[in-house]
């Protein structure tokens, strides 16, 4: 700082504060204003997580509508038009409203705690990032009651379905996505600044817990691709409202251009939803195997490789759209390359388990299920990467099975593993063991009943995004629907476990899990509102 300015006063806080999530009310503004104005990373993290859970249920209700309609062949409950709105809104809400904010919420809570920082680097920006989200999703959900209905073109909103043939509410959908995108970019900037600038003295990059590493790389991906999404939806807006012809061949544009731009965003986006999951699992497995993570450095390099490759594989979503042969080949091989760093990760997780003293607490159950079930999704991804085979699989339920395996028992299970892992830190109580186990087993059974039969339905030729189907798919769909209802209902149990844990339960010590070693376990449970007001003493571990 400049020499002519007055000397810097010691940082002042309104309260010397104690009590995190559970015992909050000692902070200056009270009630609703406290949450509206907060700049505290723990409070904002909590807001993100509550928002995400709410969206998870709203998106889940849409999924239940879809599965209820598909329970039997024929049209029973909803009109095809409304069915399309449900598939679209389910995808958009889950991707942008549930999974991404959940990871940002976990980052808000845990990144400062894991690197020994007092808060996020730019706390007010953090508040802004969060409060953009309710505004954005209120706007998105309001399209359901607009004339012409909500967006009905699938979460990938391909032109010209989303331009020439789109409902009038599409303009509002575009603006809501703009708001959500601004939120993501600002959130990512904040996370990068925090990680690069606020680490405890002595903590080198290669000393950071893997959750922090994966978030650093994810934040880079977000800043790189969310603007591209903003660009492509802006071009949609112009095509719809101002008569441009970006995605209209009659004026010299090209609808395929939309797909290129969308997937240039969209493929890194799917890694945005899985890299933090890798980080969570890489933190949980060593704790409950009571061993150091095997291959720490290779985990970091694998994550970075996946991030770089994610910019070079986008057109594997477009194999059947009419690409030049050379593009088909390039994108097929580049996609298959991703299996290498991903394989490194799975290998490292399993090798960490090898000869470990494993115990099966709820976070570990979810993390182990993640490793197995995510790998199933990875393998079906490898099948889809093979261009000539993809000609057969494209737009069938096989694709739906694939990405739900990586997103539900992948991303969502990792989020739940993280929640169970850190709940003692947030609330000071352990989640109820028996109920957590019930939640886990019902979820695992439900998720596999839902998505495994989709592979067969897809390979047999059932197309995605249709409200009715041929009779031969009836059995698979009935099993899938029953599984979906089971999975949906068992998430109510999750809410109960969380509420119960916030209200009370077995007290957790600072180091809530025996094998846990990162910095967050050096602060009391529940974590006080302000932690690491002075930088902690950090001793690097040997990896």
């Amino acid at each position, binding site marked *: 700082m400049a020499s002519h300015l007055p000397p810097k006063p010691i940082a002042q806080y309104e309260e010397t504060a104690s009590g995190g999530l559970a015992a909050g009310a000692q902070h200056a503004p009270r009630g609703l204003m406290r949450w509206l104005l907060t700049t505290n990373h723990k409070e904002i993290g909590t807001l993100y997580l509550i928002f995400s859970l709410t969206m998870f249920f709203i998106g889940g209700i849409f999924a239940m509508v879809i599965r209820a309609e598909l329970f039997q062949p024929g049209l029973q409950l909803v009109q095809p038009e409304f069915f399309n709105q449900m598939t679209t809104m389910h995808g958009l809400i889950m991707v942008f409203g549930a999974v991404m904010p959940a990871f940002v919420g976990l980052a808000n809570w845990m990144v400062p705690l894991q690197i020994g920082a007092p808060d996020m680097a730019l706390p007010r920006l953090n508040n802004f990032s969060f409060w953009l989200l309710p505004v954005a999703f209120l706007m998105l959900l309001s399209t359901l009651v607009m004339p012409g209905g909500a967006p009905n073109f699938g979460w990938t909103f391909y032109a010209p379905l989303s331009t020439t043939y789109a409902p009038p509410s599409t303009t509002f959908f575009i603006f809501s996505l703009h708001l959500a995108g601004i939120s993501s970019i600002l959130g990512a900037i904040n996370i990068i600044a925090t990680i690069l600038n606020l680490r405890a*003295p002595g903590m080198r990059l290669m000393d950071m817990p893997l959750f922090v590493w994966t978030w650093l790389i994810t934040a880079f991906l977000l800043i790189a691709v969310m603007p591209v999404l903003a660009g492509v939806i802006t071009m949609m807006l112009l095509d719809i409202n101002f008569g441009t*012809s*970006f995605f209209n*061949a009659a004026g*010299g544009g090209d609808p395929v251009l939309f797909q290129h731009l969308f997937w240039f965003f969209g493929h890194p986006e799917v890694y945005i939803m899985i890299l933090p999951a890798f980080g969570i699992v890489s933190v949980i497995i060593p704790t409950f195997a009571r061993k150091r993570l095997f291959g720490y450095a290779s985990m970091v390099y694998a994550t970075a490789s996946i991030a770089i490759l994610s910019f070079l594989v986008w057109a594997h979503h477009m194999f059947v759209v009419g690409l030049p042969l050379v593009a088909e080949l390039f994108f097929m091989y580049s996609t298959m390359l991703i299996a290498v760093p991903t394989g490194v990760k799975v290998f490292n997780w399993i090798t960490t388990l090898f000869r470990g003293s494993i115990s099966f607490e709820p976070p570990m159950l979810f993390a182990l299920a993640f490793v197995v079930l995510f790998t199933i999704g990875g393998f079906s991804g490898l099948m889809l990467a093979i261009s000539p085979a993809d000609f057969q699989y494209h737009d069938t339920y096989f694709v739906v099975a694939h990405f739900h395996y990586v997103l539900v028992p992948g991303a969502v299970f990792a989020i739940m593993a993280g929640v169970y892992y850190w709940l003692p830190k947030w609330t000071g109580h352990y989640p109820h063991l028996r109920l957590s186990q019930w939640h886990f087993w019902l979820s695992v059974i439900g998720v596999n009943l839902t998505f495994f039969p989709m592979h067969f339905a897809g390979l047999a030729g059932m197309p995605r995004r249709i409200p009715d189907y041929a009779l031969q798919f009836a059995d698979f769909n009935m099993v899938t629907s029953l599984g979906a209802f089971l999975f949906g209902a068992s998430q109510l149990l999750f809410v109960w476990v969380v509420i119960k844990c916030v209200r009370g339960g077995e007290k957790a010590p600072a180091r809530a899990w025996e094998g846990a070693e990162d910095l967050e376990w050096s602060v009391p449970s529940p974590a006080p509102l302000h932690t690491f*007001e002075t930088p902690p003493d950090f001793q690097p571990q040997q990896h």
Partner: protein
Amino acid sequence: MSGGSYYVPASSKWPALASLAMGAMMAGTGTLLVHGIAGLPVMVVGLLAILAVMTLWFRDVIHESRSGLYDAQMDRSFRWGMGWFIFSEVMFFAAFFGTLFYVRTFALPWLDGEGAKGVAALLWPDFTASWPLMNPPDASIEGPHETFSPWHLPLVNTLILVTSSITLTVAHEGLKEGYRDTARHWLLGTVLLGLCFITIQGFEYYEAYSHYGITLQAGIYGATFFLLTGFHGLHVIIGTIILISILARVQRGHFSRDDHFGFEAAAWYWHFVDVVWIGLFTFVYVF
């Protein structure tokens, strides 16, 4: 990483109000576009609210910075923040340049029957690809009659922006050497050059619509032209507003020789806008 305690800013009402204002502006704009004029007041109120909130938010930050509340670590956070923000802007323009290259390299030749996907020529067999695209494939879309020569107004604008980057650097050097008047004068010059650019660009748009038939509706050439130059122009306007506020701060003696990140952030932004223009001049106007 600093050794002492950390600085954590107090809570603020501006971020939440900013979200509300942005929501209002976007809801208003959406209503204006879809349902008509009723959305206009909401849009205007939203926009004004955004500007007001930004002003007040920045005022608080400037005040805190002036009170010496920020330490070197906070300064680094601001630097990282601004740097990555500009990177996000780079990617925003990258999408638009990508569009331009894709259309010129793939989409139009294919519509003309050339290349790997020349089968697209079946759609409009009479279509001939060219760039700038004067005759869009379908007769329902009227193309431009004439295009700009890059060596008139666009060249003038290029010289203006490049010069403005130089004058800004001179102002910065002046500030670093402690010559506040130098900084003020050259910064004022930069602002004036920015205003010249905006005026000339506005005149060019007027010409485009009134004489050249280059409009948003004139097929892909008009669309990419206005997309790229329009968003760039918007950034020049924003950059000029930023520079004007920085000028006011220089005037009030807010900056010292070695502490003026507000100035530097504005300069980074301005140079970024300049670099984008070089790309525009090259690929939109010349080639």
